[in-house]
Each structure stands twice: as C-alpha cells, then as structure tokens.
C-alpha cells in the first residue's frame, strides 16, 4: 500500500517532464494517461482508507479525510486534461507551441502540487505544498498574457501569499502550542499532533486556529479575504479555472480541516466551530448577493464557488456527524459540478467570443450538448436532485437541524435559495432563450469538451442517486475522525 502512495505522488511528474520536450499531441495523450492513472490510484486507496487507520510513512500519510480531498483533485485532473484537448484546439493558438508547452508543464505541476498537499504528513509540509500550489497557479493565471490576466495574477499572488504568511505564523504558533506536550524539538506529523493535542497549551492553539482559518481561508475564498478569487477564476484559461475552483479551494479547506481536528481535540468543539461559522456565514451571504448581480459568466461561477466554500465552513461548524458526512461529500460533488460548469462556460465563451451574460442568447440551441449540460451543471450547483450536491447539502442541513442552534441551518437554506435564484436566472436567460440577432453557427466546439462534461455529469448523478458502498464507508470514517470521541 505504501507503494501506492509513492506512485500517486510520482505519477504527475512523468507528464511534467515529458511535456517539456514532447510535441503537442503526445503531451496531451501523456497528460490524460497520467491523470487517469492518478485517479485510478486514488480510487484504489478508497477501500483501504475506508476500513483501516492511516497509511503513513515519515513524509507521506493517507487517511479517510485525505483520500476524500484527493478524489475531486484527481478527478478534475483527468477531466480538465480531456477538456484541454478541445480547449487548445479551438484556440488555433497564434501563440503556437511555446504556449502549449508552458500550459501543459504548468498544468501538470499544478495538479502534482494539489495531489501532494493532502498526502504529506504534517502541518509544515502541508503549508509548503499549498504555497507551491499558489505560485504555480499564479503563473497559470497569467499565461494568457492579457491585461486582465496580468492584473488577476498579481492580485492573486500577492493576496494569497499574504494569507499564507498568516497561515505560516499559525503553523508556527501551533508548533509552539505543542512544545508544552512534546518539549522544544519535535516534528509536526499528524499522528503525533492528534495524539498530543489534549495536552497543548490552549491559548496558543486558539491563536493558531484563528490564524490558520484566516490564512488558508484567503486561498479557500472565504469572505472577507476572497477578493482575488473572481478575478483569477475569470481571467485564467478555462481548464485552470475549473481546477482552481473545484480542487484548489478544497485543498486549502483541507488545511483548515486539519487545524480544526487538532484544535477540536485541544479546546473542545465550541471554539473552532464558531470561528468557521463566522467566516462561513459571511461568505455565503456575500456570495449569494453577488450572484444576483453578475454580468460575467465565469465570475458568476466564481462567486458560486465562494458560496459553496461558505456552505462547507458552515457544515463543519454543525455539531452533528451527519453534517460532517455531508461536508465531505460536498467537497467531492462540488468538484465534479464546478468542473462541468466551467467546461460548459469555456465552450460557450469560445462559441460566442464573450463572457458577457447580456450578449449570450440561445446557448442550448447553438450548443446542443455542452449548452444543455451547462444548464444541468448549474442546476446541480444550485442543489437540485438528482445530483450529488443535493444529497450533500441535504445531509448538511439535516445535520444542522439537529444542532441545538438550528437557526443557522435555516439561514443556510434561505441564502442558498437566493444563490439558486441568481444562478438559475442568468443561466436560463442566456441558455434557454430563443436565438436573437447575429449568432454563431450551430454545433459543438469540440468533442473533447463534451466528453469531459459528460464524465462530470455522470459522476454527479452517481453521487446523487446512489453513493457507492466503499465511498460511503470512506465518508463515514472520515466524518468520525473529524469528531472528538467523547
């Protein structure tokens, strides 16, 4: 099993090196194959992680929670790799081979860093991995070399680095909190931290938890430190937008979850829950309002990401195992749904040559496949059955209603409904209205785009209708590990 972990970390490096020299077609094939292998290895980890404890070496470690967070990353690695084939063909890129080479090398390094983050053993290495995801993705946001891309990349790298500076301070304070239990010199591996947490100095843990939520929350897109997110998501190339939204945000959430686990053991559940609740409510409220007033298709989806990150934070704050199962399922389902939605948006933007929602009309009749699936993906994002997000949000709300303070669950439902209204309003207006004025010719941009979206939609339906047994065990085991046993 340890070999599996090492293989998973090594696999994305193969296409990284190969794409430095290989021509475009081979780069695409190698990337897709490597992504498929990475996804396959993650799936192979599920049964073990669902039934055993953590699988760990001195540097790497996989338990139920880390495998849950790996799933959307490797899934989007695969679908975004497929999507990129169609996306780059449609560019008939004037920038030529250099652009394609840079794109594929960056794409693979970015995915590698996101695969590594949930697999490293310890808070310090986790911070390092997340910092690597930042710098690589900032370059990818800038890759299109437009004014908007340069601006978005600068804001992103600056804000995210500031946030990660705060997160590093949080990590160091957590180390300091642990010196009370372990003496002045020890390593920050999870097993040790989780076991020793009850003996940590509580004031220092409190400080570390707040700093970590604020710091990693910057990268996760929690309000009020979310401001880089809509810019970066809308200006990046679409495959990167999908990865940013579906995988990068949840990777940062993973770091917050780890701090939550330790803080909960050191302080009892109340304090870390309240911290998450405050940020979660702010995110959900602000994003729901911004969704109501958007003119840019990709920014609309970006604010929907802020909304879903808010739901995740609120879900973690509920004192119910059911809600925690919902949160973990939401991480996976959101990845699949946001991937398909961004791929559909990419197809629409290519076809209509604009991101402006007022100029896009008759999307479904012009793009019969990707347009239809974009509508379905947006409905899925809004929490409609039979898709996975319906099930996960249902679990979160059901868990929230068991919480003594069930008003929060009610607020969650109201705000999610507002966001649903905004999302579905704009989507139906652009996609389902009759065609007006001069329109581009009917027909899909590329088969690869349709395939990538279809894979995402199938996954969403599977998650919504019947969660496979092994995955269910994994989610339950993960949720149990997020609770203090009392």
């Amino acid at each position: 099993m340890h070999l599996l972990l090492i293989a998973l970390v090594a696999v994305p490096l193969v296409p990284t090196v190969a794409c430095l020299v290989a021509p475009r077609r081979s780069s695409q094939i190698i990337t897709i194959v490597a992504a498929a292998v990475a996804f396959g290895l993650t799936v192979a980890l599920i049964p073990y992680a669902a039934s055993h404890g953590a699988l760990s070496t001195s540097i790497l470690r996989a338990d139920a929670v880390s495998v849950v967070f790996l799933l959307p990353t490797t899934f989007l690695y695969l679908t975004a790799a497929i999507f990129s084939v169609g996306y780059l063909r449609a560019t008939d890129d004037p920038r030529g081979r250099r652009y394609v080479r840079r794109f594929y090398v960056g794409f693979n390094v970015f995915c590698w860093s996101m695969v590594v983050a949930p697999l490293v053993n310890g808070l310090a290495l986790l911070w390092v991995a997340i910092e690597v995801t930042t710098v690589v993705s900032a370059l990818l946001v800038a890759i299109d070399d437009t004014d908007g891309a340069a601006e978005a990349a600068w804001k992103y790298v600056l804000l995210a680095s500031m946030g990660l500076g705060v997160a590093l301070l949080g990590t160091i304070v957590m180390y300091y909190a642990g010196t009370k239990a372990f003496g002045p010199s020890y390593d920050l591996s999870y097993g040790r931290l989780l076991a020793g947490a009850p003996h940590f100095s509580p004031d220092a843990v409190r400080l570390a938890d707040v700093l970590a939520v604020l710091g990693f929350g910057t990268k996760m897109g929690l309000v009020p430190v979310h401001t880089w997110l809509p810019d970066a998501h809308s200006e990046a190339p679409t495959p990167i937008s999908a990865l940013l939204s579906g995988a990068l945000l949840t990777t940062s959430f993973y770091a917050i979850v780890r701090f939550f686990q330790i803080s909960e053991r050191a302080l009892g559940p109340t304090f870390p829950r309240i911290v998450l609740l405050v940020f979660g409510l702010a995110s959900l409220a602000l994003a729901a309002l911004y969704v109501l007033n958007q003119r840019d298709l990709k920014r609309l989806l970006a604010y929907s990401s802020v909304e879903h990150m808010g739901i995740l934070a609120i879900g973690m704050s509920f004192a119910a195992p059911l809600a925690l199962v919902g949160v973990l399922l939401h991480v996976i389902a959101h990845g699949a749904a946001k991937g398909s939605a961004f791929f559909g948006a990419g197809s629409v933007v290519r076809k209509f040559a604009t991101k402006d929602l007022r100029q896009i009309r008759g999307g479904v009749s012009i793009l019969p496949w990707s347009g239809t699936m974009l509508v379905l993906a947006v409905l899925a994002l809004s929490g409609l059955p039979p898709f996975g997000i319906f099930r996960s949000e249902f679990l979160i709300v059901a868990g929230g209603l068991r919480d003594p303070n069930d008003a929060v669950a009610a607020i969650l439902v109201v705000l999610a409904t507002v966001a649903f209204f905004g999302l579905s309003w704009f989507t139906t207006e652009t996609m389902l209205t009759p065609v007006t004025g001069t329109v581009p010719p009917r027909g899909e941009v590329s088969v690869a785009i349709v395939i990538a979206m279809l894979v995402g939609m199938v996954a969403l339906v599977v998650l919504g209708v019947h969660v496979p047994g092994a995955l269910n065990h994994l989610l339950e085991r993960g949720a149990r590990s997020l609770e203090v046993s009392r």
Partner: protein
Amino acid sequence: MPSVAPSTFAGTANVIAVIVLLTEFAMLRAPLLRSQVRLYAFQSLVVTALAVFVAATRHIDSLYVLAALSFTLKVIIVPRVVTRLLSRANVSLAGNSSLGVATMTLIAIAISVFGFFSVGALNLRSPVLPEAALAVSVGVILVAFVLIILRSDVVSQAVGFFSLENGVSMASLVVASGLPLIIDVAFLFDLMVAVVVFGVLMRIHHARNRTLSTEPLDQLRG
C-alpha cells in the same frame, strides 16, 4: 506572576526584534525603491543575526545552517534580483503611495501597537519564551500588511511580502527554534520559488504597462 528582570537571552532577542520592527517602519516610508530594497537586505541581516544568536545561546547547531542559507538567500540573492529588475525597468524609481508619509506612519504605529497588545493579552506565558519578541514579530507582520496595502507599486508590494516573511521567520526563531531543519529549509525554498514568481509577474506587469505603479490594475471589479 512576580515581575522579574528579563534574562540576557530575552533581552537580546527583544532588542533585535525591535530593530527589525524599526527597519520595517523605515521601509514603509522610504521614498526610493532602491533604498527600500537595501533596507530589506539590512532587515534580513538582522534576522540572520537573531538566528545565530539563538543557535549560540540555546546550542541548536542546525540553526547555523539555517542562518547561512537565509543569509545567502535573503541578504544577497533576493535584493540582487529586485535591484536588477529595477535597473532594467528604467522608469521613475520613486515609489507611490496612496497616503502621505505621516498618515501612513501613524496608521502603522496604531496597528503595530494593537498587534503588540493583543498578543500580550493572549497570555502565552512560558519560562523560555521572550514574549515581547513574539509580540513585536506580530507588529512587523502587521506593518508589512500596511506597507503592501498603502504603497501602490509592484516592487514595494513584493518587498513588503518578503519582509512579512522576515517577521514570520523571527516569530519562528523565538517560539519554535526547535523546528526540524528540514522544515526550515523547505520554508526557505518556498520563499525562493515565490521570489522567482513575483519577479516573473513584475516583469510581465512592467512589459505590459511600462510602469511599476499599480494604477493600471483596476480593471477587474464586481
């Protein structure tokens, strides 16, 4: 707890921390970008000195390695990279800021005092820890935030981030000096990668806009 005179260790650590904070203030108000970079190099040198001092008094040999690495990277390489960018940029080398120097300094003083006392209020007592030094590091980080927010040119913002990292290193030296060397090295390596990326993005910005000011960066909103 009875008040006692601070140990030599705590006293020296606090003095060094205060020097770092004062350098941060000087960077905040430095009008020329070059002098700001020089101040950053000086600040890094002081942080390196703190590492050597902690290594010597607490007998942690691995910190010498860290000090050597951080000297090479933060005192020599990073300032040189930024200076080269500046000489290539060939534009007005005075930084911009959205507020006057006096206002900026007052805001920074208020915020660092706030940081100092909030960390003090947390009561992180420990027999070996110079608490004041930790509180001052938080002050450095907050002033770096003020610098990044109020200075409106990409070089100052990048240097502000690098000095924020100095504040975090200082905090880690006083409260987590036993951190395994490999992790310290990983942090430094990360800083190096970040420096490269900041450099690339600054160059892209300059190539597109023919200026180092962040004024053109207001197109994306909503």
